[in-house]
């Protein structure tokens, strides 16, 4: 019972903070417009690249243009969502070193929630719009043998994808607990690795493939669902592991955070 009220309250506060932050950002109209379009535009370039490339060739390793764009759209959308709703994770180094963490710890709200919602990114909205457009376009341009399971799978893996992204980003940003300087180096580098997930992992050779699937599982965001939906390989249905992977990563991220936090609390900033 308590768990349900807690969750409801957390959700309420989450949307409250998100709405508040969005309101603040939207006041800077010019910036907001620029950010919205640049978010969409930068990803649009990725789409253009594939379009031009595929005017010359019919497929890459058996993957058609729209199948790859499908993967692209998922990376874009999940990235957009994290930038929009969970941008606060990127502020962790700042929070810790500027002493804002104390304020967070003095309030009766989960510190993770407070950190994630500390700020929001307008460019995330642009990313999500672009991601959604490409997602819909790719679904209508690809041949999928639909089944009840697959239809059910779509919302499941989209939610998992976003959760996986958030968990990885959050965990990476927890490096701020150990690295005293105010820099986002490690989370940025881990973020950069998502570029590999825009294409079939099998294209990259064993080492990178293993990295993408087992170590920093970006592959579960785009590649593995694509394999399942497009029936690329027999092991496709393993894609149903996505929600488990998401849960697993969320637990790890949470553990890392509290581990870092207890160290912070012991050494007294």
């Amino acid at each position: 019972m308590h768990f349900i009220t807690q969750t409801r309250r957390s959700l309420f506060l989450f949307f409250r903070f998100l709405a508040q932050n969005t309101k603040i950002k939207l006041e800077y109209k010019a910036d907001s417009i620029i950010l919205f379009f640049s978010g969409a535009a930068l990803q649009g370039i990725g789409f253009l690249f594939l379009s031009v490339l595929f005017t010359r060739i019919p497929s890459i390793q058996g993957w058609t243009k729209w199948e790859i764009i499908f993967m692209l759209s998922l990376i874009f959308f999940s990235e957009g969502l994290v930038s929009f709703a969970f941008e606060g994770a990127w502020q962790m180094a700042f929070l810790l070193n500027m002493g804002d963490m104390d304020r967070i710890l003095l309030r009766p709200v989960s510190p993770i929630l407070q950190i994630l919602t500390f700020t929001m990114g307008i460019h995330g909205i642009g990313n999500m719009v672009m991601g959604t457009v490409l997602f819909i376009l790719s679904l209508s341009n690809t041949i999928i043998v639909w089944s009840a399971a697959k239809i059910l799978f779509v919302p499941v893996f989209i939610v998992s994808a976003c959760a996986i992204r958030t968990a990885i980003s959050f965990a990476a940003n927890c490096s701020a607990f150990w690295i005293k300087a105010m820099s986002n180096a490690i989370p940025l580098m881990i973020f950069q690795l998502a570029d590999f997930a825009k294409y079939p992992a099998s294209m990259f050779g064993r080492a990178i493939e293993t990295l993408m699937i087992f170590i920093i599982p970006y592959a579960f965001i785009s590649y593995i669902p694509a394999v399942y939906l497009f029936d690329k390989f027999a092991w496709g249905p393993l894609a149903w592991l996505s929600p488990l992977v998401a849960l697993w990563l969320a637990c790890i991220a949470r553990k890392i955070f509290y581990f870092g936090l207890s160290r912070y609390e012991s050494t007294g900033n």
Partner: protein
Amino acid sequence: MRAALKKYWRHTALAMQETLAYRVTYIVNVFSMVVTYTVIFFVWSAVYAGNPDLDGYQWQEMKSYLIVSLFLSSLVSMSSEFRISRQIRTGNIAVELLRPADYQKASLSITLGYSISEGVLIAIACLGFAFITGATVIPQNALTWLLFIVSVLFSMATKFLMVYVFGLVSFWTTSLMGISWLRRGLTDFFSGALIPLALFPSTLRTITDWLPFKAIVWIPASVFTGRLYGRALTRDFAVAFIWIVVLWFLGRLVWKAAMRKVTIQGG
């Protein structure tokens, strides 16, 4: 004249030191560059596995093209862009303005500085990639090497001016990030860094032919692989040169507008 050069050289030297001091940002940039390159390399590798010849482009040539593209894209990096916006944000711009140096020229010197120190390391990295991937297509004679170096200078100048002009926009907005991404995206695509411009469909090809971005990657990389030479090269150099002049004056115009804004609004 010599005094002026000396003055701007100091900027360059300081910038070189600064880059090494900004080690962390530097590492992140390098990493980002490595990842981007690796992705592109594998994508093209997969493309060529299925299609050995693309409109005259073969895998060997493409490999060299990509490495030169990497080299040029990494030169004149974000450091310069953020430096301008950072100066504005922290108010250091006022100090800069009081110094007896032309801001645009000073910026160029500083960018040069960053580029030299970054460039050396990037060049080493590129040699490494060339070795690993077995890229063997290189200029065949001294003239081509010379033309390549000239085209690299054109590339740096063009890129600097683009970064500079876009960077000045931070006088009007607080989010340089968005502008920076836009510029980077546009540059990456239209400069031929991702796909050689020759492979673009005809309408796009015509458009990119007349844009300044071409000079940043396409021209130098194509000179390097021996694809661009003679008349076509001369023509491209001419267009690039005109663009540099145009951008230089555009830079001055925007600067003046920015100064007007500063004095009216008090920063």
